[in-house]
């Protein structure tokens, strides 16, 4: 039983940390804001979730377990929300994705007519 716990938690933790790490790399290396956000948003939520699940498997106390569940719920709720708002705000305020920047003028026009 012990070995199962160790192995499974280890698996989750390693996966989680790998995801976080790659998210960090993505944040640093990707070319523009939206791709960076993609890297962070996706890996962060999953990575954090994985690490928390790994810790949950390790935990022995019920209270600790409950708190971990709470943290997990919070990250699941908050992570995507902030990503969503962030992207929306960035786009709303006129930051164009890379490659679209040539179409900037048109886009702005479309934007301003469609959104009073």
């Amino acid at each position: 039983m012990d070995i199962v716990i160790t192995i499974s938690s280890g698996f989750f933790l390693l996966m989680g940390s790998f995801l976080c790490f790659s998210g960090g790399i993505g944040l640093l290396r990707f070319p523009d804001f939206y791709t960076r956000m993609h890297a962070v948003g996706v890996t962060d939520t999953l990575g954090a979730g994985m690490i928390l699940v790994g810790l949950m498997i390790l935990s022995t106390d019920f209270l600790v377990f409950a708190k971990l569940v709470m943290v997990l719920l919070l990250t699941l709720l908050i992570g995507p929300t902030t990503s969503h708002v962030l992207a929306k705000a960035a786009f709303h305020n006129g930051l164009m994705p890379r490659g679209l920047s040539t179409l900037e003028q048109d886009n702005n026009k479309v934007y301003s007519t469609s959104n009073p």
Partner: protein
Amino acid sequence: MLIAAIIAIFVAMILSIFRGVVGTTLYDRILAVNMFGTKTVLLIALLGFVMGRPEFLDIAIVYALINFISVIGVLRYSDTNQFKHTATDNETVKKES
């Protein structure tokens, strides 16, 4: 295993600091702060387990909340005209790409 995870997260934190410092656009910085916050939550949860004091999780919850609130705050207040994406910012983006 926990130690390995801590190191990985630590590295990710450092990377996000770099993004925060380099920035180029406002939203990159916000993103970096956000990511930094989530990483801190994880780091503290892990540290609690390493030190054998899982009471630390309370702090992790607070961090998650504060992180959320501050990102919302940033966005709410960056929505004014003052923070409209300026022409100079766009230029730097173009140059980069």
